[in-house]
């Protein structure tokens, strides 16, 4: 029958010139059933899934910083990730073991990530109903549309890691939370409950020097910030909600947050200690294709603690806005731009409440970002640049990165974190003494 069909076809078709003979692929004459699996994957015989890496990373400041060590980073890090699937449950444990002579502090603090062990993930994932997923325990959480700028993502960040040149993954600090996700057809709702406030791993002087407005000068490791961290279980808690759905290719979301400013944003009037005032955020975002790329926009209304408008020691209410666009502008070459606004609300009251000789922030802080990323050599090499520039602060921050994969597992990389600005107290300008370059050797398994 097979032959009959072929003959039939030959009869129907006008006879062309006989094509040059090519070799038929194996298995085509008298098609056979699929041979046994020929997977490349290794089954290492472990009762769980193991992954991780080991890396060494070293970096130096490009200038003398009277308040910090010359070495900006010098650490060896071993990450062990274990994942175990049970019938209706997945358990994850991702732990970093760190040897860090720069920090030189091995006392364990799992909240701040200080010490020789940092647990990144320790959670259980399960679906109690078909419309519901739950993740409980230590986890990394991200949402929103910004690229290295965040409005409605109020999960903890690790700014120290970001500025000293650790891998990008480390910008996200873990949360100890319960995430419950509901899926009702087109409408979805995420509820993240953090029973005890998880602050940012903020700039406190131990690694990165900064301008201390209370003291009126630069400050560093000899005088680190001891902030009054809200730490009462179930009272100093955080709730973050995201309600989202897609309209065709466009993704929209509404957000709500009730908790605290994630980095210190105020001072105790009597003790002068840095504090995390109460914060509520109401926001929205949209993301989707535009022209030849992806466009996004996000807004947020930051409602600070009661009385913030007239209290110079507590950060004001703010309106925040972000718009971004990304496009591939040449093969394997992507560019993206963002515009970001932080606008102080109640600005007149803010001005009126400031003490004489205090630093006066402008009403609006505008920031533009540019990201360029090029892949080379069969995508084994990546060259990247990210620049923040604020015309209102007249300052900025340039991140450079180049990496090359020597093998599938071994990667060498180098980069720089360059801060610039004209004023010692501005957002990025205050970090000028921390400009650094680094290099790393990284082995994945």
């Amino acid at each position, binding site marked *: *029958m*097979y032959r009959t*069909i*072929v003959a*039939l*076809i030959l009869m*129907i*078709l006008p*006879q*062309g010139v006989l*094509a040059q003979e*090519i070799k*038929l*692929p*194996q*298995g*085509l004459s*008298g*098609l*056979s*059933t*699929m*041979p046994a*699996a*020929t997977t*490349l*994957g290794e089954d290492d015989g472990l009762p769980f899934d193991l*992954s991780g*890496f080991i890396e060494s990373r070293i970096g130096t400041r490009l200038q003398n910083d009277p308040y910090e060590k010359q070495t900006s980073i010098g650490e060896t890090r071993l990450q062990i990730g274990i994942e175990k*699937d049970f019938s209706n449950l997945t358990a994850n444990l991702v732990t970093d073991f760190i040897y860090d002579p720069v920090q030189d502090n091995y006392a364990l603090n799992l909240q701040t990530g200080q010490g020789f062990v940092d647990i990144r993930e320790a959670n259980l*994932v399960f679906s109690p109903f078909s419309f519901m*997923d739950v993740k409980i325990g230590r986890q*990394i959480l*991200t949402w929103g549309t910004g690229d290295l700028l965040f409005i409605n993502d109020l999960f903890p960040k690790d700014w120290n890691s970001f500025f000293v040149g650790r891998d*990008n*993954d480390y910008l*996200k600090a873990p949360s100890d939370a319960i995430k419950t*996700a509901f*899926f009702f057809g087109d409408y979805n709702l995420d509820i993240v409950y953090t029973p005890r406030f998880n602050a940012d791993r903020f700039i406190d002087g131990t690694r990165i020097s900064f301008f201390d407005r209370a003291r009126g000068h630069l400050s560093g490791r000899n005088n680190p910030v001891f902030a009054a961290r809200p730490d009462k279980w179930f009272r100093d808690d955080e709730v973050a909600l995201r309600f*989202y759905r897609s309209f065709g290719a466009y993704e929209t979301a509404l957000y709500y947050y009730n908790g605290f400013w994630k980095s210190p944003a105020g001072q105790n009037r009597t003790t002068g200690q840095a504090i995390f005032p109460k914060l509520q955020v109401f926001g929205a975002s949209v993301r989707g294709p535009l022209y*030849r*790329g*992806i466009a996004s926009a996000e807004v947020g209304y930051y409602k600070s603690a009661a009385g913030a408008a007239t209290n110079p020691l507590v950060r004001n209410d703010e309106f925040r806005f972000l718009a971004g666009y*990304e*496009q*591939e502008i040449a*093969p*394997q070459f*992507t560019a993206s731009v963002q515009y970001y606004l932080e606008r102080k609300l109640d600005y007149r009251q803010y001005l009126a409440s400031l003490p004489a000789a205090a630093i006066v922030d402008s009403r609006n802080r505008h920031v533009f970002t540019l990201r360029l990323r090029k*892949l080379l050599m*069969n*995508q*084994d090499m990546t060259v990247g640049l990210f620049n923040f520039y604020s015309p209102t602060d007249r300052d900025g921050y340039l991140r450079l990165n180049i990496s090359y*994969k020597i*093998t*599938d*597992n071994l*990667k060498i990389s180098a980069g720089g974190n360059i801060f610039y600005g004209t004023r010692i107290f501005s957002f990025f300008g205050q970090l000028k003494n921390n400009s650094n370059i680094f290099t790393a050797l990284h082995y*994945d*398994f």
Partner: protein
Amino acid sequence: MNHKIKLLLLLSFLWTVPAVAQAQGVKNPAPLTAMDIVKKANHMSYYQGKDGRATVGMRIIDSQGRTRIRQFVILRKDEGKTDGEQKFYVYFTRPADVKKMVFMVIKHIGRDDDRWLYLPALDLVKRIAASDQRTSFVGSNFFYEDVSGRDINADSHKIVSQNKNYYVIENKPKDPNSVEFASYKSWIHKATFLPLKVEYYDAKGKVLRRYAALKVAMVAGYPTVISSVMENLQTGGKTLMSYSEVKYNIGLPDNIFTERYLRKVPRKYLR
């Protein structure tokens, strides 16, 4: 040979026949045009079954013999009955630095695909700008378009020759500035309509890239290329691609291709 195996082989052979007969449309005796053949080849390459899953291995070998490995599980689901919109879920397992990352594509006809990347270490769902379809897929010698299919209306097609086994079709881009080649030829198997070989030429007729199907097997009645190679004759690099654990019509629910399953891997369907 064991009788059972013989019987199996015979059965599998018999199964191919209805599929082949259907594909060739023997009920309609009108001669096949170049476009008919290209349509069938497109169907056989990218649209067999309503959905499917496969473990894909890639061995990327550069001109100096250095080898890189990629491995991922791919889930595919077709939208509608005509060969049009498709959804892909790609779960990476190798190399270690991309393990557990997910790449999701909704392929549209006539407009840019929608793409997402999920980075588990950041719990980040990233929307990716549509890229030139003729750039490398995951660093291999296969282009995005080779993996997900090229719009059959983007080229004009002509039967240039044939023999008992295959047709040779010459394809010329309607918009020559949109692609790196001047033309390409495809050798399409008459019985299965699988492309056996494809060669891309520059304006002088020099071969730029060459695809060859190396091994074909019957999977649930669908003739499937389970081993193939793409060579870049300019750089001297090549990529061997193998399919294993191929399944068709597994009943993939539509919601697999949503943010929910980017963040929470659908293990049941990846196994």
